[in-house]
Each structure stands twice: as structure tokens, then as C-alpha cells.
């Protein structure tokens, strides 16, 4: 570090536009070791001194008058964000490394190579009602999401768990039906908040903020928890406004009524950047937009037609036009560099009208290809479909774009029509992403992808603790899905947030919008 210009380094780290990940990249490229760079980053954050006080107002989309406080019912950014304010999980996620971190657990170990897992719980943590958290609360909170009768959004990823039991006052044991090295990531799901035994929708937890009022579809009010055990949580109070209209979110930030907003329209992000009081924060993560061909349904049960459709799309142009550059091209697998064990060596599929025409001819398909689309799938889906239509026409393929009503899209179109548009927000690990949507018997297998080789590789990867071998298995699976699958993944979309310039400590978190819901814990107001 001797020949390093520390003054320059300090400047980089103080720049609000440089997040931790970029900072590490820059400094490591400059010859610093990882640990030195990490400590330097922490030092620089400390240098801009977190200050306590103020009321953070976040304007987020997602909540409606029909929403509920019960974690089982959570489905969107607003819910997840609100959940993290009043309650915590056993394990969290590190925004920089993608690894898991400890929240209400202090250790996790498998005694037998990945089937039985023992978690030590943090001692002396109290819920907002004064009760001390013990293993009974944890077992209750996790078991609510399991079982055949469960309505929880996390139920699917917990099916491999056969038993969760208390093995001590501050220790629980989780037993799986087979080896899975990814269990720690499974329990980072945002639904799995630890609440006192018996709680359902009372907003009770151990989090850094205490819920004062909940009005679904309007606002949730929080005050700082004076007995909070952890770090951060600098605000005296937090208000979460539910604003589903993008224009209203924008005006609320522009007029200073809010400090942090979700889902900025890519069309207005450029204009907002010109305002010196506002910073636009776009984070590349795991969220992606997809075009889904049902591989077991005519006409897409034909390999050549699927290949023709994959080659007939110009991903670069769609990212540039629909996302205005706030995103990156996809490669017909749901995985990108944000995932651990990603193989960057998998060749990028390119727009090739001639090759597409070749496969299209070979498929023997004639007539139009119907593509069902709605902006309910993702904002800009209809524009993307029309662009795709033009691009495919150059390969001699006629796409008939069928606009569907947003209302009822998930009931009547998604997983029902042979070819439609949709989105995924991603999962913490490759295993979870593949298990939830590409394994032959997955509940949300929205391309009806059936491949025995793929499924057996997925299972073998779960038991593989050697990182290099695991990466090789995932790489092979990626190749199978990319070539055989029904998934066209044109793009990974950035989360685009915007914040007031005086809101410091914001970390771009690839796992979700508004710093993955942790802005109330991580940020503070600069004087």
C-alpha cells in the first residue's frame, strides 16, 4: 500500500456514486489486497460519520389496500422492505460478496455433510413486546411457512425440509430429505421473519424499528427500537409510503416529500440525474425479463423452432431501447455474474437472422408465431415485443403480437399460452433459481422444461462442496438450458432507485431494490 495514492483513494471512497463493490474493484485493480480494501472502505464510511436522527420517508410501489401484515402473504418490494424494518431472519445476505451473513443466528453448521443443519441462535435478543427470543419462537416462525396447507410464498423452497426442531434453548436443528449445501441461502428468504410464538399479522419482531401504524395501501409508520441489539438504524422514525404511480413517486422525491423511491421509469431517469438534489441509483442484480416458450406445447415442442426464436432476437437493441441502457443482455439462462459459481465462459448468444432462418426452415413451422404480452409482465414488455417482431421479420419469421389485458394476466396467460412474456426477480443461489423454475417437477416451471440430465446434475450439485466442481456442474446445466430450453432471456434489468443527495450510506444491493430493503438500517442524513 506504500506506493498507493491514499489521498486519491480517500476521494474515491467519499464519492457518493462509488459503492462498495465498485470501490473494491477499483482498489483491488490498483494492487490492494481484498482485506486491505475492505477495511479502507469501512474506514471511509466511518469518516463520513453516520448521524442519528430525522425521519426517513420511502415511497415504494407494491402495497395495495388488499395487503396484509402477515409475512406469509408478502409478495413485493414494499412488503419485504417493511418486513426487514420490524423483524429479522436467521441469516441475511452480504451485498458485496453475495455470501450469507448472521442476523438472529450466530453460527450454522452441518454435522453430516449437508443433510442435518444446526443453528446457534443469538442470545439476549428481545421482541418489541419485551419477550426474549428463544428456539421455540424460531421453530414456530419457520414452520408457519411449511406443510401442504401452507399459503406462504416461501413454501416451495422449503419442501426439502423434513423437520425443524428445537435442540436447545438457543439452538435449532433442521433436517433435509437429501443433501443440500445451499440450505443457509434458502433460509435467507424474505418471508422467513422470526416472530414470537403465536404472532401472525401483528407486526411484532426483533427489528431495529417498532411498528406504530399500518394502513395497507397507504402508509406504514415506524419508530426506532431503543432496545435494538444490532448496528445501524440511524433514523428516529421511518415512513413507508405506498405509491404505485411512478409519476407520483417522482414528484414526491422532487418536492422533498420523500427521500428514497423505487422503480424509476428508465425514460425519466436521465432527466432526474440532472437535478443536483437527486441521485439515481441503478443496481445490476439478478432480476431478469423473460420470453417463455412452453417446450411441451405445440408449436414449441420443436427444437429448431425454439432455436430460431432465440437467434431472431437482437438483445443489444432491446436493452438499449426498452431499458434505455439500464440493464445488460441475457444469454437464455436465468443466471448472470451476480450469482456465485457463474461461468463467464458460456458463449453469448447473438442476433443472427440467417442462422435463425435456417432453423426456422428446418422446423417446418408455417404461419404466424403468436406472442402474448402485456405490460403487466414488465414495464416496456409491449415495446419489447414489437421490436422483437421487427427483428424476427428479418429472419423471415412473422410474430403476431397479441396484447393481453394486465388484469388477469397471471391467471389466463402466464403458464397457459405457448409463448408469453414474464419476469423473475432472481434468487440468492443458482440452485434455488433452477429449482424454482427449471427442474422438471418445479411448481413454477413456466417453460415446462423437462430434461433428466439437467435434473440429476442439479441434485448432484447440491451435495458437491468443492467449489470448482460445483461451478463446472452449473456451467454444464447452463449450456443444456441455453440450447435445449424454452427460455429466451433478452435482458437482466437494473433496479433503478432514486434518493435525495443528503441521504448517505446507500449501498447498491444486487439482491433487491432500495438497497434490498435495508436503507432504513444502512443510511443516515448528512448535515
Amino acid at each position, binding site marked *: 500500500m506504500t506506493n498507493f495514492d491514499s489521498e486519491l483513494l480517500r476521494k474515491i471512497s467519499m464519492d457518493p456514486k462509488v459503492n462498495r463493490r465498485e470501490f473494491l474493484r477499483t482498489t483491488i485493480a490498483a494492487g490492494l489486497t481484498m482485506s486491505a480494501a475492505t477495511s479502507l472502505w469501512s474506514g471511509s464510511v466511518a469518516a463520513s460519520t453516520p448521524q442519528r436522527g430525522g425521519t426517513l420517508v420511502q415511497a415504494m410501489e407494491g402495497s*395495495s*389496500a*388488499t*395487503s*396484509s401484515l*402477515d409475512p406469509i*402473504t408478502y*409478495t413485493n418490494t414494499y412488503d419485504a422492505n417493511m418486513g426487514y424494518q420490524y423483524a429479522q431472519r436467521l441469516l441475511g445476505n452480504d451485498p458485496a460478496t453475495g455470501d450469507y451473513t448472521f442476523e438472529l443466528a450466530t453460527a450454522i453448521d452441518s454435522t453430516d455433510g449437508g443433510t442435518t443443519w444446526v443453528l446457534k441462535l443469538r442470545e439476549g435478543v428481545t421482541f418489541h413486546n419485551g419477550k426474549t427470543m428463544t428456539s421455540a419462537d424460531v421453530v414456530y416462525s419457520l414452520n408457519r411457512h411449511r406443510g*401442504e*396447507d*401452507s*399459503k406462504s*410464498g416461501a*413454501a*416451495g423452497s422449503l419442501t426439502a425440509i423434513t423437520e425443524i426442531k428445537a435442540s436447545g434453548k438457543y439452538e435449532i436443528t433442521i433436517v433435509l430429505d437429501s443433501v443440500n449445501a445451499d440450505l443457509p441461502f434458502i433460509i435467507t428468504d424474505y418471508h422467513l421473519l422470526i416472530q414470537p410464538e403465536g404472532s401472525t*399479522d401483528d407486526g411484532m419482531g426483533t427489528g431495529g424499528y417498532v411498528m406504530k*401504524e399500518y*394502513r*395497507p*395501501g*397507504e*402508509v406504514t409508520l415506524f419508530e426506532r427500537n431503543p432496545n435494538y441489539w444490532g448496528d445501524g438504524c440511524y433514523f428516529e422514525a421511518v415512513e413507508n*409510503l405506498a*405509491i*404505485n*404511480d411512478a*409519476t*407520483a413517486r417522482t*414528484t*414526491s422525491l*422532487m*418536492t422533498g*416529500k420523500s427521500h428514497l423511491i423505487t422503480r424509476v421509469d428508465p425514460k425519466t431517469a436521465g432527466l432526474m440525474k440532472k437535478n443536483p438534489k437527486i441521485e439515481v441509483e441503478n443496481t445490476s442484480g439478478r432480476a431478469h425479463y423473460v420470453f417463455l416458450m412452453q417446450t411441451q406445447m405445440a408449436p414449441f415442442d420443436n427444437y429448431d423452432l425454439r432455436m430460431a426464436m432465440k437467434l431472431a432476437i437482437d438483445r443489444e437493441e432491446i436493452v438499449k431501447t426498452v431499458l434505455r441502457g439500464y440493464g445488460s443482455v441475457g444469454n437464455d439462462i436465468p443466471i448472470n455474474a451476480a450469482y456465485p459459481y457463474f461461468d463467464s465462459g458460456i458463449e453469448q448468444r447473438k442476433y443472427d437472422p440467417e442462422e435463425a432462418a435456417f432453423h426456422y426452415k428446418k422446423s417446418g413451422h408455417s404461419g404466424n408465431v403468436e406472442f402474448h404480452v402485456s405490460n403487466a409482465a414488465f414495464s416496456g414488455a409491449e415495446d419489447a415485443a414489437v421490436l422483437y417482431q421487427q427483428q424476427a421479420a428479418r429472419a423471415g419469421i412473422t410474430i403476431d403480437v397479441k396484447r393481453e389485458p394486465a*388484469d*388477469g394476466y*397471471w*391467471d*389466463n396467460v*402466464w403458464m397457459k399460452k405457448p409463448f408469453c412474456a414474464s419476469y423473475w426477480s432472481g434468487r440468492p443461489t443458482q440452485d434455488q433459481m433452477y429449482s424454482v423454475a427449471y427442474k422438471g417437477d418445479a*411448481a*413454477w416451471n413456466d417453460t415446462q422444461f423437462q430434461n433428466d440430465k439437467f435434473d440429476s446434475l442439479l441434485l448432484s450439485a447440491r451435495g458437491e462442496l468443492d467449489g470448482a466442481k460445483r461451478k463446472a456442474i452449473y456451467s454444464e446445466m447452463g449450456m443444456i438450458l441455453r440450447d435445449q430450453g424454452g427460455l429466451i432471456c433478452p435482458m437482466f434489468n437494473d433496479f433503478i432507485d432514486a434518493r435525495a443527495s443528503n441521504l448517505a450510506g446507500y449501498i447498491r444491493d444486487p439482491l433487491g431494490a432500495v438497497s434490498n430493503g435495508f436503507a432504513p438500517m444502512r443510511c443516515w442524513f448528512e448535515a
Partner: protein
Amino acid sequence: MNIATLIAQRVALGILSLFLVSILIFVGTEILPGDVATAILGRSATPDAVANIRRDLGLDDPAIFRYFHWLASFVQGDLGVSLSNGQDIAQSVGRRLQNTLFLAGTAAIASIPLAVFLGMVAVHYKDGFVDKFISMTTLAAISLPEFFVGYMLILFFSMTLGWFDPIVSLNDSMSFLERLYAIILPVMTLTLVVLAHMMRMTRAAILNVMTSSYIETAELKGLSGGVVIFLHAFPNAISPIINVVVLNMAYLVVGVVVVEVIFVYPGMGQFMVDHVAKRDVPVVQACGLIFGGIYIFFNLTADIISIISNPRLRHPR
């Protein structure tokens, strides 16, 4: 037929229409595509979870049974619980309805006197510059869509001048004046939207009366124009004006979803739209019936006021 019988007859007809409305609402919600179970789970519906929710909510009972059960509880004031989040419907609707009535009421108090006054002024300066100016500006305001008017007001009063908040946040600790201040922009928007209709009707109705011979008498005995219009012509023109006023008040209560979205106002419109999207049938039915009731109530009021204000109906021969 005396006036009491007339009114009783109107009320009975109103109740009958409300009953018919309840049937329409029930049938309407039955034929919505999709069902509440898949709507609640949305993108994350697995067949098991859907079956569980359907069973829990009693969606497997026959429709006719559910209709009478629903109507009977509704009449007793039991609106049930929301399917989507288990909240008590009477309570959540109550709060939203209060907000909506507050906004609609304030807008009505601001716009009705203004519209009637402008109408009278327009009559006084009939065909002159003032008349044309009033008509032109109010008609221009009604011709612009609500969201445009709303955004223009936000741009001018919030972004440029910084006088008023672009989004409305109401909470229980606010005083009445603070609440009024918070809703100024939506009230202005709604006023601009409903003003022209009422103003034009006032003007037309009064002009119609102005051709009567008793108005000529009043003018000939030397009364000033204003007095003639206000004391002589206006009372006899009130019936058609009331009709239009009431129609606009009903609109203010049931038709302001767009304005609610722009200003993030927690009213009935957005509440109902949210529940329709989630197929939360009990809430949609309750909202529908409440809206129907309000509409019928306003029309009833218009009828009764017309009867009272018209001596020919008050003193039948």
C-alpha cells in the same frame, strides 16, 4: 296526493332500485374472470395453495345461497371480512369512505357556490365579454383530462411555487385546517373538472326563466339586474340546477379514481380498484352497494328538492 306520500313513494322506489343494484353487483362479480384464490396468490399460485384457499373461503357453495347470505348480513351492517387480508370490511371501508366524503364534500362546498355565482354573473353580462370569458375558461378546464389538470397544478403550485404538497398524507393527529391544507390541490382539480357543467346549467336555467313576463315586471318596477336574477329568477330555476349539482356530487364521490392516483389520496376509488384486481369479492360488493346507495340517495334528494321548490307539486289541485 300530498307531499309526504310523494316522498314516501320516491323512497320506496329508491329502495327497490338498490335491491336491483345488489343483484347486478352480485352477478357482475360472479362473472369476473379468474377467482379470488388465484388472484390472492397471483404469480405464486400452486394448485395446492389455490385449493386450500378456495376451501377456507367457502367459494365452493352455490351462488344463490351466497347471494342471500350476503344480502342478509349486509342489511344487518355485517360486511364480513376481506378475503385478501382478513381485515374487517366495515372498518376499512369506513375510513376510506370518510376520506372520500371529506374530499368530495370540500370540493362540493368550493365548486357549487362558485358555479352558481359564475352562472348568475354570466347571465347578468349575457353575451358580453365577461360571459364569454367565464364560459371559455370553464369549458377549457372541463375539456382537459383530470390527470392533465392535476399535473399542471402540481407543476405550478408544488414544483415551481412550493406552496402545496403534491401528495396527500392524512393522519389522525392532523387538525381540520391541516387536513384542508393537505387536500387543496385535489380539491382545485375536482373543482375545475365539475365547474363548467354546473355553471352552464345555471346560466341556461336562469336565462330560460328570464324570458317570463314576471321578470319583465320586476325590471319595469326598477329593480336592479342583480336583485332580479338572484331573488326573482334563481328560485324558479333551482330545479334543473339541483339536478346537475347532484349529478356532479355523485360523480365526486364515485368517480375520482384518477385524481386519487395522482395525489396518492387514500379514498374509495383506489380502494375498490385494488380489491377488484385481487378479486376480493366481498369488498367489491360492499363498495358497489355503497356507491349505488349514494347515487340513489343523491337522485332521491334531487327529486325531493324539486318537489319542494315547485309550488305546483306542493299544492296539487
